């Protein structure tokens, strides 16, 4: 049995040039033959399949194409080959199988336009989404029995309780780094005692809440987007609507409330753990005893620093949850979209949090909470 398909061209005095094919005309064996046949130019009157051992649809397809190209007649086909030829004959497979693609000079402006349009409808969308949430909340206030308390508690556990270890570890290390690096610089002025002020104020005002928001965006914002996006793809959300359950009330509001509320607790917790981290460094390298460090925090950190952090926290939580839920519900089409929307949820949430943090910093300083 021949390994690959062969061909030969013979001059026949009666019927004109004749193409003899032999060997297996199957997908596995046809690659070389197909390339070789592209080099055959001359007129072919008949294609003789007498020598063909085995044939599948790909073999039949190539024979068919060849016959059409040269207006040749097919002879010597076995019964099986005849059937296959009949099945593929008359199919036109010339056009492309990929998605339609514009030339580059049209594609770039089109994409630009789409981006601009998407940005506009994104803003409309988020504002509309916020409105839907407010309406949903109002209706829940009027019908408190509908309040999704179980979902809320479950989300609070997912967003808050399960995040405690990782946020604790992160904050502890941040506290250590700030105290250690800060003391090195402050030592140059002989002011290493001020490390306490540095650690206490920066963690309570800025870093505790900011780092927590970034962590929550990565952990929970992405989870919201991926989960709601998948539910959208599998038509679970449509199913809820038809039963008469509002996805905003059942899915979005618990997530938004959980993230908003848990951010306050997590932000405070992160600040406390960071201060503990700083105190450990103080004890080990600066000669400030652990409890003295904590006592000093009480004296040097003004109370409004705590409020600055606690006011920012729920706003950041709201933004993270909003970005996650909004992007999740925007998913349509395919699995790639879930990934794209999840990325967008995290990136836009972190970006918005950092921009807002800058505004807050200026605002609080202006009102005298410097």
């Amino acid at each position, binding site marked *: 049995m021949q390994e690959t398909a062969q061909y030969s061209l013979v001059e026949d005095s009666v019927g004109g040039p004749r193409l003899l094919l032999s060997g297996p005309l*199957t*997908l*596995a064996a*046809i*690659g070389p033959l*197909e*390339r070789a046949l*592209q080099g055959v130019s001359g007129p072919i009157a008949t294609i003789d399949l007498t020598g063909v*051992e*085995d044939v*599948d*649809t*790909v073999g039949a*397809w*190539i024979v068919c*194409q060849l016959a059409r190209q040269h207006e040749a007649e097919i002879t010597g086909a076995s*019964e*099986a080959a005849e*059937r*296959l030829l*009949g*099945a*593929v004959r008359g*199919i*036109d*497979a*010339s*056009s*492309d*199988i*990929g*998605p*339609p693609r514009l030339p580059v000079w049209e594609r770039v402006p089109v994409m630009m336009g789409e981006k601009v349009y998407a940005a506009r409808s994104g803003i409309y969308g988020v504002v509309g989404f916020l409105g839907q949430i407010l309406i949903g909340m109002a209706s829940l206030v009027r019908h408190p029995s509908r309040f999704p308390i179980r979902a809320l508690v479950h989300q609070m556990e997912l967003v808050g309780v399960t995040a405690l270890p990782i946020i604790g570890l992160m904050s502890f290390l941040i506290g250590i780094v700030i105290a250690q690096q800060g003391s090195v610089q402050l030592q140059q002025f002989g002011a290493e005692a001020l490390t306490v002020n540095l650690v206490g104020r920066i963690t309570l005002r800025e870093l505790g809440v900011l780092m927590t928001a970034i962590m929550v965006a990565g952990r929970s914002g992405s989870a919201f987007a991926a989960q709601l996006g998948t539910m959208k793809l599998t038509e679970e959300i449509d199913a809820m609507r038809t039963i008469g359950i509002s996805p905003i009330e059942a899915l979005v509001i618990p997530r938004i409330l959980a993230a908003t509320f848990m951010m306050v607790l997590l932000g405070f917790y992160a600040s406390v753990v960071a201060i503990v981290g700083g105190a450990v460094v103080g004890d080990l390298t600066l000669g400030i005893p652990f409890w003295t460090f904590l006592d000093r925090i009480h004296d040097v950190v003004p109370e409004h620093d705590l409020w600055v952090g606690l006011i920012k926290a729920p706003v950041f939580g709201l933004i993270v949850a909003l970005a996650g839920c909004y992007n999740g519900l925007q998913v*349509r*089409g*395919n*699995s*790639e979209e879930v990934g794209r929307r999840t990325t967008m949820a995290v990136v836009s949430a972190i970006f918005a949090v950092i921009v807002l943090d800058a505004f807050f910093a200026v605002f609080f300083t202006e009102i005298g909470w410097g």
Partner: protein
Amino acid sequence: MTGDQHNDDEPPPIMVEGLGIRFGDFVVHENLDLTVRRGEILGVVGGSGSGKSVLMRAIIGLQRASEGRIDVLGRTITGVDLDRGIGVRRRWGVLFQGGALFSTLTVGENVEVALRKYYPDLSPELRREIARYKVILSGLPDSAVAKYPSELSGGMKKRAGLARALALDPELLFLDEPTAGLDPIGAAKFDRLTRELKETLGLTVFLITHDLDTLYEICDRVAVIAEKKIIAVGTIPELIATGHPWIEEYFNGPRGRAAKASHERAAE
């Protein structure tokens, strides 16, 4: 059988011996035997949850068997790592229940995936042509080739899935409830297509179905799964003759009688 020139001494396409599958304490199959003959359409029926899909997944190597042995096209599947090459994947095609099309690729590109994987030396034009005529052979309109799965209806997804299953001209075709969710006209067309493809391409077909019309119209033999094993295999009259209560109820219920009557009318 046209289209295949295989000897009789070749092993049967599917041979299952003493198969046992359990999830934890839950036993799905126990001591299950089944042989599929070359060139036949074997229908597999059974109540919901009787493990039809699990059996199919075990045969194609997606589900690990707890005991027993499965040979497909002369190779042993059991005990082989799922992602290791076993030399038979290019000789079978699988149509999953929901189509399971790759959602980020167009229908044509879905068909092309297996061609790319196994025959990278084919010229890209030929590969595209093959993908395209397979889609058309599966009964989809020309315009569907460049569409994404999300733009297709349920029935079209099934056909696109069939085109992908046929991409490599397989000898063995697995169909998991191909006509579920299709309208009666579409289902009858799909049945005819399956039969036609089997006859032209010389396929062996393993077909899971709940559709009594499909069983009557196109299946050469039917295997019944109940009580954790295959309780009977044979033509429908043979099955009814066994007198097993479940089979009795299945084929002699109102739907079974209607399907039989319409089959007899069509035969006249």
